[in-house]
């Protein structure tokens, strides 16, 4: 990883098409401006990680969870409301 120090008003160019500018620093918060081609995604890492993590969990459902799910869907469809459900069915 390349580590640089920048002050507000300074910028970093990445490749030919991407510009990252430091707009302001306030306390522990940095405001960045990013210019990139429209086909380049610019995303907050933690959101990407959350989606990736849910993809991982969703792709590895234990067989027992799948069986419960199918059973629950079937029961719901047949109108056997589980205790605690307060819908009319």
């Amino acid at each position, binding site marked *: 990883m390349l580590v640089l120090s920048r002050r507000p008003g300074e910028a970093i160019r990445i490749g030919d098409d991407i510009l990252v500018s430091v707009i302001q620093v306030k306390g522990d918060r940095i405001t960045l401006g990013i210019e990139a081609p429209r086909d380049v995604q610019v995303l907050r890492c933690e959101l990407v990680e959350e989606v990736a993590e*849910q*993809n991982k969990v969703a792709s590895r459902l234990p067989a027992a969870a799948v069986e419960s799910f199918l059973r629950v869907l079937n029961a719901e469809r047949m109108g056997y409301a589980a205790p605690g459900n307060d819908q009319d069915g």
Partner: protein
Amino acid sequence: MKSVKTRATADLFFPQGLVGYPAWQRFRLVHSPDLDPVAIMESEEDPEVVFFVTRPTLVLPSYAVTITPATREALHLADDEEPAILCILVISEEPFAITANLLGPILFNPLEGIAYQAVLQDSTYSARHPVPIPALTDEAT
């Protein structure tokens, strides 16, 4: 899921794969009368990779995604065409719970099958939105 009767399939191709999994590009979307409106999305690269998916508006009726021009182009959609949208479900036990990933929906061109998993960073949608079971057996929509 051999015990589930299947009815219809569609093929999805994600040029960029799924978020975090660029190698998972080709999926088969399988519908079954036993599961509708939940469907199954099976990986063609790894048959053990299977997802439950459904329409996000069943989970959250107000769910709305703004499609950027870049995404529209990537999906080969004309200006007046809308993508089909699905969300991936997670089932957990102890206690039993179902959540939907509304932060990372799947957008696809229903005619061509080109697909893309978006990360909706301008929204406040959750990657683990709770799903009440009756929402998944609503056959009226």
